[in-house]
């Protein structure tokens, strides 16, 4: 399916490549031009992705806007794309955050052209991961995503950037290798049982994976995704990566890349191996609860604003996992909306920290104090975002967290009860930071002269503030769109494997040729 004959998913994924091509023609020192091109292309990509929201018919459910054709026939790999209610929303989040990150990186003067190329390539990988329904294709996008991020941290990061970048790569790669092994093994199992080669995820859903193997395969997938989330205890790459990464990198990393992990559980690891999930559930829930509390506690003692926000991600993503493992409507729906919330709120927090870093070249909490005086607008925006992250009802964070707790309570009252302690801890660590940065008298003379937000910075933050209020007051447009997909996911977990409904277009014969990969 496509909109007005345009294969919209391919368009969204590959539109940034036109920007890359254009940037290759730009001279090395034409930073301003490079910025303009990147901004225009990411802006266009966001606009191109918007129709997906309206095109996705929640009443019909399943995968829509599907594009499918042979890619490497010898291996059975296909170019197979499709969006469900969840991935559609995640793509919108991705295109929006990428656009805002480019706008936020306006003062990035070191190798601007290359920086923008990396961001655009990253966007290709990210949207591709969310939309690929062929596992081989998915893995290609998965790896495509890794390298630009490695360079963004390693080249444009701060002092310990190489250490952080390597840690990021080694962690994710080590885990990805295991996943690749598992993918190839699944491919083999599928061949064995059906007699033909295929990486089609929807076919793999139907596969009855024999038991001991299922356990190991799930473990391999789960590990790869757990590192990305990151789940406790695989999270230690995150604080380093965030602290060293430039603002745009942090925003995309927290806003989108972490969702690859939770999305991977939702799309791959859990529907393919429901029996193994059932066995591992107590452990996984325990780890989710541990992450929620552990992240929050460690947050309290961080002297660096960025590190604090990074650890808060560990806690918040723990909530996402908790909801997912509840395997009921409120839990999973809460988990999915929390993914969007975390992207918006944490993205905004990193943007805000980046803005003060650009002015002062430090992120240490102790360097500030009394900023409410010289920067009232900045302080106000910061407070709204902090409150959203704390989960103040009426703002976005609450809707997700409450649904997750509600769902989790139904299956594990103690787990949910203990996790609810995070509402206290989040208030402590975020408001304490806020107090130290914004309240009191200005203690350092340099801070007295700090300029408040510029028009460009306000433009970066405004869309996120709108979303923070909108998703908090009226989350219905988001919840409704993801409802059928969430129901399908839950059905896939209900013991005996039910048939996963496919949209009619998701059959090889019905594919119209004419979409080229490149």
């Amino acid at each position, binding site marked *: 399916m496509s909109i007005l004959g345009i294969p919209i998913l391919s368009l969204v994924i590959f539109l940034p490549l036109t920007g890359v091509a254009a940037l290759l023609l730009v001279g090395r020192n034409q930073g301003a031009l490079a910025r303009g091109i990147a901004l225009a292309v990411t802006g266009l990509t966001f606009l191109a992705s918007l129709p997906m929201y309206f095109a996705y018919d929640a009443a019909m459910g399943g995968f829509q806007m599907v594009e499918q054709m042979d890619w490497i026939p010898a291996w059975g790999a296909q170019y197979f794309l499709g969006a469900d209610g969840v991935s559609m929303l995640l793509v919108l989040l991705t295109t929006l955050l990428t656009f805002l990150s480019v706008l936020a990186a306006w003062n990035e003067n070191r190798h601007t052209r290359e920086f923008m190329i990396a961001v655009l390539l990253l966007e290709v990988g990210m949207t591709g991961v969310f939309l690929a329904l062929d596992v081989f294709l998915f893995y290609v996008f998965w*790896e495509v995503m890794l*390298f630009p991020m490695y360079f963004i941290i390693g080249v444009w990061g701060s002092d310990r950037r190489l250490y952080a*970048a*390597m*840690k990021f790569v*080694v*962690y994710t*790669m080590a885990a990805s*290798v295991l996943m*690749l*092994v598992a993918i*190839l*093994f699944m491919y*083999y199992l599928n061949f064995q049982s059906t007699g033909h080669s295929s990486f089609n995820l929807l076919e793999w859903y139907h596969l009855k994976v024999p038991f001991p*193997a299922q356990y190991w395969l799930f473990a391999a997938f789960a590990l790869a995704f757990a590192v990305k989330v990151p789940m406790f*205890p695989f*999270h*230690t*790459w995150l604080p380093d990566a965030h602290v060293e990464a430039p603002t745009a990198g942090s925003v995309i990393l927290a806003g989108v890349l972490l969702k690859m992990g939770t999305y991977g559980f939702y799309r791959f690891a859990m529907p393919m191996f429901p029996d193994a999930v059932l066995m591992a559930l107590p452990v996984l829930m325990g780890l989710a609860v541990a992450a929620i509390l*552990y992240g929050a*506690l*460690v947050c*309290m*003692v*961080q002297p660096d604003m960025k590190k604090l926000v990074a650890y808060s991600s560990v806690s918040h993503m723990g909530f996402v996992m908790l909801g997912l493992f509840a395997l*009921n*409507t*409120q839990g999973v*729906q*809460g988990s999915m909306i929390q993914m969007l919330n975390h992207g918006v709120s944490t993205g905004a927090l990193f943007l805000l920290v980046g803005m003060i870093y650009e002015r002062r070249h430090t992120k240490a909490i102790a360097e500030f104090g*009394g900023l409410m*005086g010289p920067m009232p607008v900045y302080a106000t925006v910061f407070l709204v975002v902090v409150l959203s992250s704390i989960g*103040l*009802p*009426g703002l976005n964070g609450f809707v997700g967290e*409450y*649904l997750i707790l*509600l769902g989790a*309570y*139904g299956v594990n*009252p103690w787990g*949910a*009860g203990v996790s*609810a*302690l995070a*509402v*206290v801890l989040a*208030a*402590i660590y975020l*408001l304490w930071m*806020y*107090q130290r940065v*914004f*309240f*009191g008298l200005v203690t350092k003379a340099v801070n007295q002269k700090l300029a408040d937000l510029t028009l460009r910075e306000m433009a970066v933050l405004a869309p996120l503030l709108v979303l923070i209020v909108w998703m908090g*007051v*009226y*989350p*219905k447009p988001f*919840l409704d769109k993801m409802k059928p997909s969430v129901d399908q996911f839950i059905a896939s977990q209900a013991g005996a494997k039910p048939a996963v409904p496919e949209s009619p277009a998701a059959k090889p014969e019905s594919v119209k040729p004419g979409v080229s990969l490149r």
Partner: protein
Amino acid sequence: MMNDSLWIIPALPLAGFLLNGLLGRKLGPVFVSLLGPGVVGAAFVLSIMAFNRMLQAPGLTISQTLFTWIQSGNLNVPVTLLVDRLSGLYLLIITGIGFVIHLFAVGYMRGEAGFWRFFAYLNLFIFFMLILVMASSLLLLFVGWEGVGLCSYLLIGYYFEKDSAAAAAKKAFVVNRIGDFGFIVASLMLFWLFGTLEMAGINQQASVVLGAGSLMVTTVTLLLFVGAAGKSAQIPLYVWLPDAMEGPTPVSALIHAATMVTAGLYLLARMSHLFVLSPATLAVVAAVGAATALFSATIALAQNDIKRVLAYSTCSQLGYMFLAMGVGAFGAGVFHVMTHAFFKALLFLAAGSVITALHHEQDMRKMGGLAKKMPITGFTFLIGALAISGFPLIFSGFFSKDEILWQAFSSPAGSTLLWLVGLITAVLTAFYMFRAVGMAFFGASRLEHPEHVHESPWVMTLPLMILAFLSVTGGWLGIPHSLGGGLGITNRMEHYFEGFFAQVPAGAGHGDTGTELGLMALTTVLALGAMALGYRMFTVNRERALAWDQTDPMVWKVLRNKYYVDELYNLVVWRPLHWVSDKVLWKTVDVKGIDGTVNGAARAARGMGWVLRLAQNGMIEIYAVSMVAGAVLVVGYLVFLTE
């Protein structure tokens, strides 16, 4: 007023918040001082209309559903606004007293740079408070609940340059959040028990779904009470309220005396059908209420800051209200909420009037004789003090407090001990209030510049007079049968709430009219004695009392330092938590444990340096390719192995 225009009541202060917040700074203080109080006054008028309409509506309830907030599975949370007898009364208190205090604030805050910001927050507070009481769903109530907490945070921290104000604001929010933890978990339990978060539905089904006295109902009500104790400043979560006095005085009057701090009581009253199912919880509520009442009253004895006296007095009076609800007298609790709103708002505003006149001096030892300089302020403060001390037969506090004491004594859930604690508290209250009256308003002046002190302008004294009028007459709505019965005066408050609250299971209630009158007389005599004593000690014998105060006797020192509870919490809760997070979780588990393992493994493989060189040469692809090749080999091996 039609049902479908109920939304306008909260929408008015919300609009006030947005306009003041966005345009207030540009349009200036005249605009703000018209708009800020104006929207609340308009909301008050509409509230009266809604109230009257409610009284004529079938079932004494009117409601309006605006839209669905959250819908997921069988959870359905509509935004439904509801006015019934309980929320109707609260509506009048919030908007009525709210308007008067807004008016006062126009005078009190004049000339402040953050004038617009102050009124924006104050309007936002009224909005959330209205949502809190008008919500039909527990979750929507929670929106208001947290919203008023936020406004309290913003207003306590209004003077953000002051470290003490900033710390107090954070403390208030965090301690409230501890209560919210209880609230949230209770709501999760209730949803899975009842399948809904609509409070009417839960009340209706409560006795069917939950067995009376079951562990489940006790757990869920205790958790709700944790929430209520946080918001309404009860032991052990009361510590934030005295510090909240860092906020401007109108804030103390509105939020930290008249309205927000009674939200916990509102919750109990609203869920009365749930609470009466658990005698154990009710016993805890009564005990905590009585303990807080007495405990805070003793601290108030030794405070010299006029606002601190009033703050501890608020904790203490809130304790009274919980005591009432704990013995099943929900109506008596709400009655005291109302009269307390009148006289405590009055006392705070009068204190505010003094504080402005003295250029932000709050120490009562530096006052004295103010009644001559500020007759209206002095006279109205005296009325407030008479009301809270329970001066008999005229003042509102007498009737509502007497009702609580009588219920504590005579209800099946009450006891002589609870009554006795209430009695002692009443005596202490009378003493410390007249100590304050004497120190601040009478006796010899100890002012540094008495010639600069003048009565406040009408915009401040008018609110004082309105509240003074209410502090006197408000109690006449609840004249007990033992006094009014013979004269044909009915207890209108009791009549108003007839059949609204759940009843505690009938048991061996004791006491007749004779006993009631006897106890009433005893309380009255003791309170009058304490008032006279407090007044005399701190006017005629003032120098001697202050000299004794100077010697700092042990008991006094403990009281003045609030029993060192803050220090205790710091030592037992905060420091260990911080230490574990810092030294154990972060620096040991994270840095040494997990990271140490990862880095160690990487070093052992000497992989870091090798990959790094490749990366710097732009050849990381080679690594990727070799990785894929390696993976293929592993799989090949596995496949052969399994065959």
